[in-house]
């Protein structure tokens, strides 16, 4: 019998952040009365640009990618149908339900939980905001490949957001396509692979 429950429902990393991060954070506690130093923020942006291979001008920092996703949905769902998959990242589903004037969820069915590409493409006959987590949360399935991303963003009235919160585990990214396609956005987070869920750093 366990003395204490093991918390698994938020899919957090079970290990603490590295010693260097803990030490740096501890030192910075004395500066909590100050706003973030713009130079530090610029330096972080540069590091994120190097890490992701995306120019700084295409990166937006956010206190967690969930807030950014919510903002995207709030801003870009006006006059657009929202298309998501089910199951999907819960905060995305919640925001979509809250802001959508028309919402289509494409069910990922067992046993394979694959996304039927034709089914998705059939939905793109009107202005759409498509939000897909790749790999999918919670199934872990890779839903998209480059060809499919191209097929979606080739629709000029369609905005595609790919949530790559688990990129470091899948190794699959479409970040390099962002410059070429203005209707494609990628979200990333430091919650998972960097053991920093509490720090709320997203892009």
């Amino acid at each position, binding site marked *: 019998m366990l003395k204490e429950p093991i918390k698994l429902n938020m899919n957090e990393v079970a290990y603490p952040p590295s010693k260097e991060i803990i030490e740096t954070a501890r030192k910075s506690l004395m500066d909590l009365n100050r706003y973030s130093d713009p130079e530090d923020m610029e330096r972080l942006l540069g590091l994120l640009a190097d890490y992701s291979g995306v120019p700084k001008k295409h990166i937006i920092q956010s206190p967690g990618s969930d807030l950014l996703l919510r903002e995207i949905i709030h801003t870009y769902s006006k006059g657009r149908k929202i298309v998501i998959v089910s199951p999907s990242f819960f905060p995305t589903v919640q925001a979509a339900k809250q802001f959508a004037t028309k919402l289509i969820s494409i*069910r990922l069915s067992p046993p394979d939980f694959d996304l039927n590409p034709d089914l998705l493409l059939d939905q793109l006959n009107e202005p759409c905001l498509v939000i897909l987590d790749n790999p999918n949360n919670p199934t872990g399935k890779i839903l998209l490949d480059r060809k499919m991303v191209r097929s979606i963003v080739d629709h000029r009235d369609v905005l595609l957001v790919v949530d790559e919160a688990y990129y470091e585990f899948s190794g699959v990214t479409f970040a390099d396509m962002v410059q070429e396609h203005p209707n494609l956005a990628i979200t990333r987070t430091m919650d998972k692979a960097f053991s920093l869920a509490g720090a709320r750093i997203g892009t």
Partner: protein
Amino acid sequence: MIVNPVAGMGGSVGLKGTDGEMYNRAIELGARPVTPKRTRDVLSHIKNNERITLFVAPGKMGEQYMRSDDMPFTVIGTVAGDTSKEDTKRISEEMVNSGIELLVFVGGDGTARDIYDAINSKIPVVAVPGGVKVFSSVFSVSARAAAEMIEAFVESTDLIEEEVLDIDENAFREGRLASRLYGYLLVPNVKKLLQGAKEASGISGSSVEWKKEIATYTVEEMDKRVLYLLGPGTTLKAIADELGVLKTLLGIDAIFEGKSVGKDLNEKDILALFDKYKKRKIILTPIGGNGFILGRGSKQFTPEVIKQVDRENIMVVATMDKINRLDCLRVDTGDLDLDRLLSGYMEVTVGHKEKMMVKVRC
């Protein structure tokens, strides 16, 4: 193999069963036998029959549906005139005593109870859905699935116990679904081919709110020039409530211009309405737990009826809690070609302006 020749006959005529006197009533209303075709569907889908020795019940309980090019068979038992549940029990006992290893039966929940009374857990069964009420989890999802289960048994599978339910037919006819667990039968353990038991309708606060939300949206979207046929279930009743129309909970009702134009309709009634109304839509909700939208609990929607309503005019509504517990939606109309046509993805209304694309399997 043993067939209940009268099972399912109450379905198309809206009688919700053929227990007792209802068989004669079904005949008066022009009901046609259902199980012979189901039996043929099973036999025609068994591909590897070299290792099967078939024993069938006599006359219209099995023998009559065999063809010369089927696998060789031996008839067990005798029957005279009209058949009854006593014949089902007696002949299945004789079959078990003769040393058969698997009993395949075609019928509904009532037939399953008779088989359970006769053989209990002595040997495993494959239950082919053929009745009006097919809510027990012992049944396979379709005749074709039953054939696959027979093949799986021949290839050797584990066995599991599945439920046989006792549905009160009189209560069912009055619009209530009263069931109790009657017993368990052993079946080959191929979960994907078994239909699962019906779950009770959600009565939680959120489930009631979801139904109301679905109902409001559906009514907003209704076209006054279209005849709507509302299938059974509490989600469909919520739509009728929204319109201020009384709805038979387990029957099929018709709505035109927001008003009731037919209640507890059978196949004949529906086809008569089709003569008058050229634009039609059917609104259905899946059965909780197994996902059937057609072929269980709404046999009045016969293949003949469904073919006169295009696939795109079949609307499905379901609460999120129900849909989240289903692997897929299912159809088993008794017409395999039609089932294939209905398969694929369908839009399911799950909330206000909110739809989910869900796979339909047969």
